[in-house]
């Protein structure tokens, strides 16, 4: 994958994450569409060996919603993540919760569904 394509994917991931945070804050139905888009982007990144970008994003403080999505996608879609790393990502998610507004509720549900 070319570098510019990588950057585009990461950029889209961040944009969609932030759009999701806005959509979910009012429960708008398009949140589900964005949810699906982000998941597809994350899968493409993982397939394209771009998990490192997600890891970097997961630790970034620039966009809490993008960081949260990166954590969630790494937990759920990256088969190479072991349970210890999942726990660390879950901890990171809990740290982010305070900055997520309504999206926090979805993170709580996500962690519960993934038994974390």
């Amino acid at each position, binding site marked *: 994958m070319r570098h510019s394509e990588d950057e585009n994917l990461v950029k889209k991931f961040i944009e969609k994450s932030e759009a999701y945070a806005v959509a*979910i*804050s*009012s*429960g*708008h*139905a398009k*949140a*589900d569409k964005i*949810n699906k888009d*982000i*998941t597809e982007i*994350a899968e493409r990144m993982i397939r394209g060996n771009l998990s490192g970008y997600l890891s970097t994003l997961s630790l970034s403080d620039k966009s809490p919603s993008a960081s949260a*999505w990166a954590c*969630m*996608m790494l937990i*759920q*879609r990256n088969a190479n993540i072991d349970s210890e790393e999942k726990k660390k990502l879950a901890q990171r998610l809990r740290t982010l919760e305070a900055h997520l*507004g*309504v999206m*926090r*509720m*979805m*993170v*709580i*549900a*996500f962690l*519960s*569904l993934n038994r974390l």
Partner: protein
Amino acid sequence: MDPSGLAWHRVQDGIWKWENDGDGDTPRPLPDGGFETPEDGMEVQSYGNRVHYAYSDRAAFEAWHDPIAAAQLAAFHKTGVSAINQRNLEKYQQELAAYNSRQANGSARFRAGAFAHGMTQQRDGTIGGFRGPFSFLDDMTEEVLFGKYQRFGGGDRGSLAMQSTIAAHEGGHVVVTGLTAFVALPEAAVSLTSFASFYRSMKTIDGALVLSREAQAQVELARSAWSVRQFGGGPSLRTGGAFPKGSGRAGTVVQRSPIGPANESFDSYADFLARFGPASQTYNRGMTWEHIVEQSMAGRLGAKRIYSTENTIPLPREINKAKADIYSRLVPGTNVTAREWLSTQSFEQQYQFEIDTLRSFGVTIAP
């Protein structure tokens, strides 16, 4: 007679009696002898359309009437208050009588409001007790300070009957009768002739106390703020800030009013509504009852836990809808909605999730 125009006196040894009009009508005993016992130490006697109360001892008397006495005396003794009340004493007394008359002929809607205010229905069908409206006293903020009084006439609105004896205590401020509202304003003069126009205007005055049309007192804390009652036992809500778009009224304050028992449970929502009425009537058209743990859980978790005052709060419709919409959304990376996931959780977990969701809307839960 105390300044309020209400008579209270010792009628015989050991019995304290309070009459709500004292006009000397001949008592008309109830079929069973004329007494009800809605509370320990208290007896109620029906006099035609009026209800009188008798007490076995002074403590019981004061326990029941102290809020009223405190409110009335405070209202009448406040600077600037006594004048207007004394001027209108006769009118006030007349309207108390009108209130009692309405009790005997109360509509279902009025009854629901009355019960919601802690009143009781007597065996002859009248609804007794002036206690309820004064429960609002605890909700009135100390910061609400008033200088001048204004008198506002209003049209005959059935549910306004409930407001006939509302008064205020410390810092306070108001006596509202069935057809007339005496309202204290933080400063001067509002020259209005109708309750409706008065109410509209009051929304622009910080700190003004307003009574809504639906048997409740509202404290206008800020230009766009309003307050509503919260049933006893539940959390208090304070909303503000991140409201869903379109909900308008940022800064809404929903205050707890310790009315009624700590918790009441019902077998169905219909039973709850029969007791408390629709939120749109109890509060205003923008309000709805919100079940903290959703009604769909009644089957699994038990109807009485769902249809209880602890699990039911008044909430602006916009927030109610936004919350329901969020519950319908998919959890990230899954095909499971938040509601589907939530339905697998315990009552306590669901309760906390909802409270947290409301909090994320800017609804603060006070202890």
